[in-house]
């Protein structure tokens, strides 16, 4: 059908990988914020981590900030992946899992470097 995308399926796989790796760069921020929140409050509460002593204004504000940042990033990530997923010959659940892992790659790289 004229006008319908006729690119080979494998190029969409590359596109998916590229997009998620790129999204992973700004993704460092929400992922780190999630860790910051978890380490200072819920994980610290059960003794797995030690809270930063100067963080003493309560968890409500940090929770709000983390929730907003993570929600916005997730929305952007989902909107970016949705059109690609339709064109990739992968099981949807597998697609979302692999995409999520690809998004984590820059963060893991940073963790390895720092």
């Amino acid at each position: 059908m004229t006008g319908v995308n006729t690119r080979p399926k494998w190029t969409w796989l590359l596109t998916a990988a590229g997009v998620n790796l790129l999204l992973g760069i700004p993704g460092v921020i929400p992922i780190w914020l999630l860790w910051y929140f978890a380490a200072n409050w819920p994980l610290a509460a059960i003794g797995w981590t030690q809270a930063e002593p100067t963080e003493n204004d309560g968890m409500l504000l940090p929770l709000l900030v983390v929730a907003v940042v993570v929600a916005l990033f997730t929305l952007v990530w989902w909107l970016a992946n949705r059109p690609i997923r339709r064109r990739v010959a992968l099981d949807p659940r597998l697609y979302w899992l692999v995409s999520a892992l690809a998004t984590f790659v820059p963060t893991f790289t940073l963790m390895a470097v720092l």
Partner: protein
Amino acid sequence: MADEMVRVAQSFVNTTYNNGATLGTSKLKEDGLTGWATMYALTRALQYEMGISSLSDSFGPTTLSTIGTKYGKFDETTIPSANFCRVLQSVLYCKGYDGSEIDGTYNARVQAAVVKLNQNMGLGVTYPGSSLWPKVVKGLFNMDSYVTVSGGSDAIHSIQQWLNGRYIPRKDFYVIPCDGYHSRDVAKSMLFAIQYELGMADGTANGVFGPGTQSGLKSHTVSVVTNGTWAQLFTAAMILNKRSVPFGDFTAEVKAGVESFQSFIKLPVTGTGDFQTWASLLVSYGDQTRKGTACDGVTMVTPPRAQALKDAGYEYIGRYLFNPSARLPEKQIQPGELVTIKDAGLRCFPIYQTWSGSADYFDYLQGTNDAFKAIEWAQYHGFKPGTIIYFAIDYDAMDDEVTQYIVPHFQGVMRTISENSSYGVGVYGPRNVCQRIADAGYSATSYVSDMSSAFSGNLGFPMPTNWAFDQIATITVGSGSGAIEIDNDIASGRDTGQGDFNAGSYTEGVDVDLDKAAYRDAMLTDVQIYLTSIGVPESGGDGWTDSDWVTLGGISTTKAYDLVLSADWLFTSLARQLKLRKALIQAPVLWELRKLNPLDFLADEAVKSGLKDDCSTGWGQIFSWVTIEARNYCMQQGIINGTPLTSTDLRAVWDNLQDTTYNIGSVAYLTVYNSYQLGIAGPSLTTSLTDTQALLARYNGTGEAAQQYGSELIGLFKVLENYNLLSRNK
């Protein structure tokens, strides 16, 4: 508020005079607002139209005499050109009168405006008709108002009109403003008027309160039998000094007013307008031959000098707590001097003065700094609780400078003196400064520099309501070894100084200001090395899971350090006042500054918007409820003064914590409170490192996180204390 016709006038100047180039000025801003720039340009335009070659902003003698000689006066028959008329019409609009569309004709509207102007100036009888006379023209080309302005007094307005109307024919008397306010011009015009009434000729009368005027006034005592011009002049002087009497005859009501004034100003209460009363009404220093009972000086009071003062009838002497200058080596109270003063039966009131000779010295922080130092010096010399310390403003402060610089300065002085001592605040300065500070509630009494009679802050201002000492003349008392030069002061009795003194106190080993030139860089390096060693690099964090990344883009170690150093004087003052180590206050503040992150600012915003009641805030990241507990404890222990705080003060205290001086002070008081909470001895100059670490940990609360806080801060404390020690040993 912008006026369309003033804008037209500005446009006329720009268009007619080549955007100011013809007049030697720059282009006028066409904003419809009358200001000096517009007045100067119009003055130059008038001079240009009259053919004066050397144009000036000033409407001086040449401009005035040229009007007289060339035109006599301006009216529809003498106006030389349309543009000449437009200049006058423009200036009428700038003064709030109808200039008739600036059309270049001296028409009926202009004539009506001039009649109105003459009436407002009080010249309706002297200059009937619609002509503009030279002195009236001069009165047009300035910013003076001829109607009572906001807050002005109608009684003073009437006096101003009366003075203009009666004395304008005299050669050296020019139109004074009729705005309802006493001022330098009005004060001088009163002196001219008196000189004219004394029979002084033009050219002799000069508006100065000189020997001739004083001699003349001595034979012009006014009393209830006096009517006519002398009574009018006297009642005018009373009204200008804010005494509520009717203008005109010397009635029984005026007599009562005079008695009240004489009692207030500490003159013999005679109920008559005698020379001393005239003098006090006309010039700030009054009759300089008055015998005062107070004095101040920059010379040590030795036993012979003390005896000379006593013999001359003096009871109180003002002496300086501190002298930062090598000049006048005896300016500061000398060892043993207060004992001499006491033994002679004299009393002393202390003055604190450093560099107080210009506006840029004064601000809230400087006031706080001065107050801490004054407290320490007063304690050093042995002044007892209740002593009023006079803080000096030794220059002619303009009213807007008082608002912008001096009132905030005294806010800092008053807050610190009230909180950290049992002393009181006095102010030394011109009348206006003293009254403004008193009105703001920042002084108990005033020591008035009335000797500086030419100060704008003295001219045209009545004596401050809370005056204690009135400085009127410099004289020498005694002879031989007892000779001493003093400023002779009248005392009101509102402050009787101190006649007995403590032994004086000084604590060895207290902290001093950091020698920044010597140690700033080395100390910063050591702070950075230490912080990096515990995982706090210059900025951000030192590993992926390090929560310090949240501080990235916030305050670096260097920035935090420099902020702490910028308030070094405050840390020093608090440490000296509380007799504890400066680093104990510096360490948590430096740490909290370095650890500031966006969540802290969000928390502040949440409190400001009412979403939260409280959060840790300011340099010390201290909670309002913690501050309340700490300050209340210190009040209970007599360490600081104040009204006990309650939970209803939570927001007010949080707001106060935004003030760095209040915030750091609260950090200092919290360390004292924490010693109580820990059940250990209060912090001192010899507190052990173990107790210091415990105090630093308690700053963060209790539990494991607080212990970590303490173990991290004790290292920082050691680094800071190391350099504080070096500064102390210097």
